[in-house]
C-alpha cells in the first residue's frame, strides 16, 4: 500500500528555513564546533521510539580522528540537515506518526543514506540550491518508503532519478576538469624540474 508523506514543496520550504543550530559546526576532536551530531541523532531516534545511539553506531556520527575532519565534515553536516528534515510536522501526524517515521529507517538513512549526496554537494550549497533541497527531501521520503503528497509513486521515483543524474553529470564534469588540472600542474612541475636539471646536475636549489 502506498503511504504518503508530506509534499516535496513543504519539505523544501522547511529545509530552506533550517535554524542555525543545525548549521553549526560538528564538534571536532579539537573541541572546535558547536553541535554534537550524535546527540542530535540520538534525541531524534528516542523521540521516534527508537534507542539512543551507542558503540559503533555512535562512532558513525562523530569524527573518527583529527586527520579525518576534512573528509568527514560534509557528511556530518548533511546528517544535521537530514535530522532537521525529519522534524517537519508533516511526518508527525498524530497516530500515523509511528507509521510514517520509523526509527530504524531514519537511523539507516542518516548513517549511510546521505553518503552519496555528501560526495556531490556541500552542505552550505545544498540549502541555497532549490534542486539540491528537493533532492534531499526526495531522498528522505524514498528512504522511508513514502510517496510525496500530490504525486504518484512512479512520478516521484522518476523525479528523484532525474535530479540525481543531472547533479552527478555536473559533478563528474567537475571531477574530470579537476583531474586534468592536477595532471597539468604535475606536468608543469616536472617540466620545470627537468629544465633546471638539464641546465645543471645540481639542480636542487
Amino acid at each position, binding site marked *: 500500500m502506498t503511504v504518503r508523506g508530506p509534499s516535496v514543496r513543504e519539505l523544501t520550504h522547511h529545509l530552506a528555513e533550517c535554524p542555525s543550530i543545525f548549521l553549526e559546526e560538528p564538534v571536532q576532536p579539537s573541541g572546535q564546533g558547536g553541535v554534537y551530531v550524535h546527540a542530535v541523532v540520538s534525541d531524534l531516534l528516542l523521540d521516534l521510539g527508537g534507542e539512543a545511539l551507542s558503540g559503533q553506531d555512535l562512532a558513525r556520527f562523530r569524527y573518527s580522528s583529527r586527520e579525518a575532519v576534512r573528509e568527514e565534515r560534509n557528511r556530518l553536516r548533511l546528517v544535521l540537515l537530514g535530522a532537521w528534515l525529519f522534524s517537519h510536522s508533516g511526518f508527525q501526524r498524530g497516530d500515523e506518526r509511528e507509521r510514517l517515521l520509523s526509527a530504524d529507517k531514519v537511523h539507516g538513512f542518516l548513517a549511510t543514506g546521505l553518503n552519496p549526496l555528501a560526495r556531490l554537494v556541500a552542505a552550505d550549497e545544498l540549502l541555497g540550491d532549490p534542486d539540491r533541497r528537493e533532492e534531499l527531501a526526495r531522498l528522505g521520503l524514498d528512504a522511508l518508503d513514502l510517496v510525496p503528497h500530490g504525486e504518484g509513486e512512479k512520478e516521484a521515483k522518476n523525479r528523484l532519478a532525474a535530479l540525481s543524474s543531472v547533479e552527478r553529470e555536473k559533478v563528474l564534469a567537475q571531477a574530470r576538469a579537476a583531474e586534468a588540472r592536477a595532471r597539468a*600542474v604535475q606536468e608543469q612541475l616536472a617540466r620545470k624540474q627537468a629544465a633546471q636539471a638539464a641546465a645543471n646536475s645540481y639542480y636542487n636549489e
Partner: protein
Amino acid sequence: MSEIVLTSAQRAFHQGLLEHPSAPRYNFTSTDMLTVERLAEVRAYERDFASAVFWKEGRHPDWLPDFVAQAFRTVPFYRVLGGVPKTFEAIPSFGREVLQKELSSFVPDHLCLETMTAYTTSGTQGSVLPVPTHPSVSSLLLVVTEAMLAKAGVSYPRGPGHTAIALVGYQQKTLTYASLSHHLEGAGFLKLNLAPHEWRSLEDRARFLRETSPHVISGSPYAFEKLAEIVPDLRPAALVSSAVALHKGHARKLSETFACPVFDMYGLTELRGIAGRLWEEDDLELLSPDLYVEILGDNDEPLPSGMVGEIVLTGGRNPYLPLLRYRTGDRAALVFEKVRPCLRSFEGRRAVRLEHASGEVIPSLDVVNALRDLPLAGFSLAQDKDRSLKISFCGKVDEREVRHALGELFATPTEVTAQPSWEGKPHRFRSQLEGPAF
C-alpha cells in the same frame, strides 16, 4: 610581461662577477626572474610590508577572512571540506605528508601554470618534494629578510658595484652562480660553494670573497665555520644562518671573527623567512605580518600564549601554495611581549654531528643530497660512537641502493631497515658522536 633591460653599468658589474680572475667554476646561470610587472608587484609588496602590523594576542590578522574565503573558492584541497567554517579554528590542520601526497590540489584553479616554477632545496627539513612557486617569491623574501636585518641597522646595498648577498655552502654538490637582483637595483647575488673542488685554486676563495665583499652572507652554521677558516678577515655587515639550529657559542665566535651581527633565521622549504633573531636573543621574532602563526596541540586545539605546541602556518607569500593551518613539525610557544609576536622555546632544525669513517664532518645536507634521487618518503639516520650507521627509510627502493649511497658518503658499516609508512619530518638525524654539530 616586459623584460627588464639591464643598464650598461649593471651588465658590466655582472660580467665582472662572472669573469673575476678568482671566481669559482660557476655551474649554473640564474636570474631573479623578475619582469617589469613583477618588479612593480615586489615594490608594492615592500610598501605594504612596511606599514603592515601583526595581529594582537587572541585576535586574527585583518587579512585572514579574505584569504580563507579565496582559498576555499579556488583551491581544490580546501574545497573538499565543503564550505568555509564559521570559525577559523574549525579548519582542520594538515602536515607535510598530506602536502606531499596531494601537492597538485594545492595550486589554485585560477592561476596560470606557465608562470609557475618549481622550488626544491636540500635543507634538513626539505625533501625531493618540489614546491610550486611564483618567480617573485625569492625577491619578496629579500623584503622580509631586510626587515629582520634592520634590527641591527643593516640594509641591503642597491645598485651595481655592490654584492648585496652571498649564499654560501660547503657541500659536495650544490648550485653556484652569480646573478643580479632587480629589486636591489642591480646589486649582486652570489651562490657559492666553499668546498675546494669548486675553485681553481684554494687561495681563490678568500681572494674572491675579499674582492667582491658581500654585504650580507647567508648560509648554514657549517658553511660559516668553513668561511671563518678560509677568510676570517672578511667584514660583512651581517651573517644570516638558516637550515639548522645555530648554537650560541658558535654564533658568538662567528660574530667576533667577522665583527658583525649574526642572525638565526627559521624557515621551511615550503615557506621561507618565518622568524628570526639576533644570536644573543632567546626568542625568534616573527618576520611577516602576512603569515599567521598559531601553536596547536595534537588535536588541533589552539594553545594559549606561552604554551609549547606545534607551529602551524596560514598565509604566506607564495600564490601557488596558499597554506591554511599547515603543521610544520617544529615546536615552540608563541608570546606577545614585543611589537612582533615571538616564538619561545623553539625546537626544530636540530643540528647533529655526523662523521666520515676518517673522522671528517659530514653536514646533514650532504646526506639529504646523497639520498635525493631515491624516491624516499622519509628516512631516519642514526650514527653510533663507532661511526657505524643505522638508517630506516620508507619508499620503493632496494635496501642495497640506500646502503650504497650512504657507503659512498660515509665509508662506514650501515644497517638498513625498510619501513612500510612514514609520518612527520621527512629527515631525522641522531648521533652519539661528540663535537660541534651541523
